[in-house]
Each structure stands twice: as C-alpha cells, then as structure tokens.
C-alpha cells in the first residue's frame, strides 16, 4: 500500500471509529432517558442560552426538581440563537411548542402577539411560591419575590395588564474595561464618571498607542447599549410625555406626541440624542456597524481595545479567558450642564430598564400548565434560584438569593429614576416597530461617516420619519385590535363557567377595557395625523 493510500485508509478508519463511538453514545443516552417507569408528566422547556455552563445549570436544576417529583420528567431544548425564532415559529405552527419557552424581543409587533401563543400567569403570580415555605419569602406573592416585583418589559405586558413570564436571572449592562490597561494609560484604576470625562479618556487611549481602540464596537452591542444610553440621557424630557401621570411613558405615548407635532427630529433633546449617538459611536472600532459581537469580544480579550459594552451574561466567558483584571462601569451619562449632550437626564438613573432576565413563558399549547408552573416555582424559589445562579454564574432574580461575590460589582442599581414603561418604553433606535428600527439602523452609517454627521443623518431620517411612525403605529394598533377581539370572546365565555373563572374574567375585563380605550384614543391620533 503506497503512503498516500495508507494515509487515506487511516483517515477513513478514524472517521468510522468516531462515527460509531458517537452512535453508541447517542443510543446509550436515549436508552438511559427512556428506561424506568414512564413518567406521568413530561415538561419541556426551550431556550437559546448556549453560553458555557448554562445547559449544565439547567440540567442540574431539572434533576433536582425531578428528584422531588419522580412522576415528572423535565426535558431541556437548547436551540442556537441564530435559528431560535424560526424554530419557535415552526413549533407554534406544528402545535408542538414546549410547555415553557424562553423568549425576548424588542420588536413591538412580536410583543403584541405574545398573548396569542402564551398564557397569562397573573393568577399564579398573586399566590405564594410553595417552594418558599420555611424561608423569608414564605407567604409572599410570587410576583413580589422577584427583584423587580415581577414587572419588567418582558414579564409584564402593560398593554394587557397581565404577567406573562418570570425571569430566571438578572443582568446589568456595563462597559467592561481592562483595569491594567486603564492604569497604564491614566495612572489610575478609576473609570470616568460622566459622558464628557469618558470622551476625554478616549483621547488618551488613542494617544497612548497607535491602533488602540477605546471601545470594542459591534453592531449588536450598539443596538443593546445605544437605546439605553439615549433613554437615560433624555429621561427628563421623555417624562413630559407621561400624560396619564404614571411615571411611565410608553412608546405609544411618545410617538403619538410626535404625530401631534409635539416634537420632531429637530427638537433640541432629539438633536442632543443624535449627538450622543455620534460621540458614542466615535469611540468605537472604525466600521463597528459591520462587526459582530464575537469580533468585538476578541478585540477586547487581545488588548486591542480598552473596553467592551456588554451584558453581564458574558462575564463568565470573559473572566475565563482574560489575562488582565476586568472592571466595569455603568453607562456614562452627560452632566446637566454639558452644553452639547446634557440637560435632559434625570439623575441618578436606575438600571431598572433591564429588570430580571431570561423570561420563560407558559405556552398556550401546554398540556400540563399546572406542572409547568410548578417547575417555574421551583427554579424561582430561594433554593432553586440559588442553585441555578451558582451553577450558571448568572446573577439571581429572586430577593434574598446571594449574589456571587465576584458578580457584586455588576449587581443592578435600582436606586434611581426610570421613566420608560415596563414593556413598551420608547426606544429611539428601536422605534415603535420594525419599520422605525430599520429606518434608524439602515442609515446609521451616515451618522458615522466622515462626510456625514448629525445634520446629514437628521436630513435622511426626517424624509421618511413621520410616514414610518404612521406605518408602525397602524400595524401596532391593528394587532392590538385583533388581540382585543379574540380576548373579548374568551373573557365572555369565562363568565359562564365557575366562580373562579368568573372572577378571572372580571379581573381581566378591567385591563381589556383600559386597552380598548387606549387603542381608540391612539387610533384617533393616527387618523388625525394621516394626510
């Protein structure tokens, strides 16, 4: 046998051995999963958290739960984020959605459609979590055991005045930085305290070493960080749209005000917002809009950038690979007297726009809603959430569950103002809907190009801005009307069942009426705005 053939033979043999080993492993796993008495109830849950350690943390929590409930089998479906939405759509269409589904979207159209596929869990949220018996949270309504009272933009749908999900963890958005590099550049570990000082640091970074970047930028990071930065920088102005005196402004309030002529892209706070966006982007890697988060992460890890805007969900990964000390700072905001960027923030500001994370929804297709809720009860109990948090290295979502000492610097700061609505707060970059998001995002390069800038970006946006808001609002209201129509029938039917169903119907009717009046009021504004 000549050497070439021998090499080929060895390669094919290795491939065959690998294939057979994999096959054997899968068969053994399948057998192990199906051996023993068939459980009476199977609870399936799906998520896309494939970060290191997450699947193991879920498995550990599920195993502990199954030890308490031998009649239940809990199955995990970890689906890659890139295909998660398509996978979920397929499952919904096929009627095979897992009982519990992790879902998150900043697209208002998606949010409006949540009640079509997921059930309200309000009635459970008002009852104590049975797994908290004997703890400090015994007898406390489930919703009040969460760090954010169970209400954030993903778990509580303000439009329906109902709870739909519970968050299993909590995160904060921070600018992570290389402490060693910061000390080398400035002689101190202390990060800048406000936006202007942060911009000044950028100049020092660039002067320190040619090619060194202040912020490792990427398209995703921009989309995560920029809306929060803008909302926080403009909170005082946004609050002027709180006509219903709730200390909470919704996207509907905000953009209806725009249609009524109360503001436009040239209104001073909006221009300040665009200047902040431009200045923030100017600190990032050139061409960051074309880069993905992995390349930003690699640049930070290699010491090619001083900092990286990111969520704490990636901290365990960063910590494991970094060869330097990692620090973190909150988004730097303009001071009130800053002539270019300041005057519209409400300080101090809360991290409260984030709330708890990794929301799990109860599928309407679930055959075992009570059992599925029981599993969620366990994962969000003091013991269960501690177990999950320690295993995953993500911060807990439950009051009184200790945060890993290493994560303490990242714990949410809720001691501050937050004025945007829980679910549908106005976000400049995300707009009122998909068309608004596309308008802002697809033209962002104009803001950052050498011959562009705030004026050029404003000119391009304002050509289509009003028409875009009208389109997005029309779509949003159409979906709301459809949801109302469907719920009307269901709530009326509940009136003719038992007393418990009647009580639930009455309770939900109140939110239905509030939604209906808001819908008609917004439709009136939309009609008046259309040519």
């Amino acid at each position: 046998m000549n050497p070439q053939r021998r090499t080929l033979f060895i390669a094919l043999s290795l491939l065959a051995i690998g294939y057979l080993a994999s096959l054997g492993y899968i068969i053994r796993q399948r057998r192990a999963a199906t051996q023993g008495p068939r459980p009476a109830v199977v609870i399936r849950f799906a998520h896309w958290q494939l970060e290191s350690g997450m699947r193991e943390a879920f498995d550990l929590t599920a195993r502990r739960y199954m030890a308490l409930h031998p009649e239940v089998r809990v199955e995990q479906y970890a689906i890659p984020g890139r295909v998660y939405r398509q996978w979920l759509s397929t499952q919904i269409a096929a009627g095979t959605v897992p009982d519990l589904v992790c879902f998150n979207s900043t697209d208002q159209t998606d949010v409006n459609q949540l009640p079509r596929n997921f059930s309200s869990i309000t009635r459970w949220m008002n009852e104590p979590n049975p797994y908290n018996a004997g703890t400090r949270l015994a007898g406390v309504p489930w919703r009040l055991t969460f760090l954010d009272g169970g209400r954030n933009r993903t778990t509580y749908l303000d439009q329906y005045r109902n709870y739909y999900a519970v968050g299993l963890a909590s995160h904060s958005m921070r600018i992570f930085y290389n402490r060693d590099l910061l000390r080398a550049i400035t002689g101190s570990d202390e990060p800048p305290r406000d936006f202007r000082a942060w911009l000044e640091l950028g100049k020092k970074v660039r002067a320190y070493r040619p090619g060194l970047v202040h912020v490792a930028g990427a398209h995703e990071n921009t989309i995560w960080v920029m809306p929060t930065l803008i909302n926080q920088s403009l909170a005082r102005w946004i609050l002027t749209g709180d006509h219903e005196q709730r200390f909470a402004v919704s996207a509907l309030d905000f953009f209806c005000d725009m249609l009524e002529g109360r503001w436009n892209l040239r209104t001073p706070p909006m221009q300040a917002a665009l200047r902040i966006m431009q200045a923030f982007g100017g600190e990032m890697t050139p061409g960051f809009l074309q880069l993905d988060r992995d390349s930003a992460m690699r640049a930070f890890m290699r010491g090619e950038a001083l900092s990286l805007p990111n969520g704490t969900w990636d901290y365990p990964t960063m910590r494991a690979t970094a060869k330097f000390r990692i620090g973190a700072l909150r988004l730097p905001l303009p001071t009130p007297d800053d002539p270019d960027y300041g005057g519209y923030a409400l300080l101090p500001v809360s991290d409260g726009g984030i709330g708890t994370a990794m929301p799990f929804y109860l599928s309407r297709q679930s055959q075992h809603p009570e059992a599925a809720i029981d599993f969620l009860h366990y994962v969000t109990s003091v013991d269960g959430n501690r177990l999950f948090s320690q295993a995953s290295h993500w911060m807990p979502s439950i009051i009184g569950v200790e945060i890993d000492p290493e994560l303490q610097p990242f714990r949410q700061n809720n001691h501050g103002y937050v004025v945007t609505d829980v679910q549908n707060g106005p976000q400049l970059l995300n707009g009122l809907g998909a068309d608004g998001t596309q308008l802002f995002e697809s033209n962002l390069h104009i803001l950052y190009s050498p011959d562009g800038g705030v004026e050029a970006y404003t000119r391009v946006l304002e050509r289509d801005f009003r028409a875009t808001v009208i389109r997005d609002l029309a779509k949003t209201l159409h979906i709301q009307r459809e949801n109302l129509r469907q719920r009307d029938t269901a709530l009326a039917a509940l009136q003719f069942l038992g007393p418990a169903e009647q009580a639930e119907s009455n309770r939900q009717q109140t939110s239905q009426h509030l939604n209906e009046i808001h819908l008609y009021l917004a439709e009136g504004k939309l009609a008046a705005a259309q040519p």
Partner: protein
Amino acid sequence: MAPDPRAAAAEYERLVATGADDAWCRLALIKLAILRLTVLRAPGPLPAQLAAVEPLLARTADIATQHDLHLVISEARMNHEIYDAITLGHLQAALASTAATDTTRADLLIQVARVATLLGNPALAREHYQLFLRDYPQERRAFTVGEALAHLGGAFPP
C-alpha cells in the same frame, strides 16, 4: 369587515336599555362608555363631550362595572390632559374599589398622588405616595415616587 362603532353603540344601547344589569348589560355599558369617550363623542367642547358619559355610572349598581367606568373615564380625561377635581374623583373612586392584588392599583396610587399634587393637595398626594412605597417597595418606580414625595412642596422632577 370594517369596524362600525355606530352600529356597535346602537347594539350596546339596546342592551343597556333593557335595564337587566346582568353580565351582558354591564359589559355593554362599559363598551358604550368607551365609544362615547373616543370615537363617538357628543357634540360640543371637549369637557362637555367627556362629561356626557358620566350619567352611564348611574345605570348600574354593580361595583366592578362602576369601577371600570371610573377607570375609563379618568383615562380618557388624563389622555386629554384634563387634571381637574372631576378626574381626581374618578381616580379615587376607581382606587377605592380596586383589589389589593389588582395590577392597576400601583398605577392608580401614583395617578391619584400626581393629580392631587397638580390640584394643590399635598396631603392627599403624600398619603398615596406613602401607600405606594409601603405596598410596592420593589417596584421600578419606587425611587421616583420617593423623590416625588420628598419634593412635594416644590417642582418635580427637581
């Protein structure tokens, strides 16, 4: 099929006219109020248009229905930025019949306090801000409410 609010209102009126005060009539009463507060407003200036809905409150003895009527009337008034004693009255009436576990209660406590502040009644505002802080200490607006309480005598936000 395009929505026809006039036809809907006619059906609701027919139901309400029966005076049955059953589940259907109660539902019709609120839906009629919503239409009259929005797309089918009475003629005249805005305050008169909104005031024309008030008599519907007397058409039911059901507390839950009255609660929802107070709620939609106050929402419509505030959406039009009418922060007067009538609005405050509706908010208070709605709050009085709101269950402790109801998800609208936190909003109502803030709304009563803020409208009371605008009407120069800091004592009422204080009482409701304090209730909010007692019952919803973890709520995301707790800091804002605490600051509003601290600045009751002056401008807010400071």
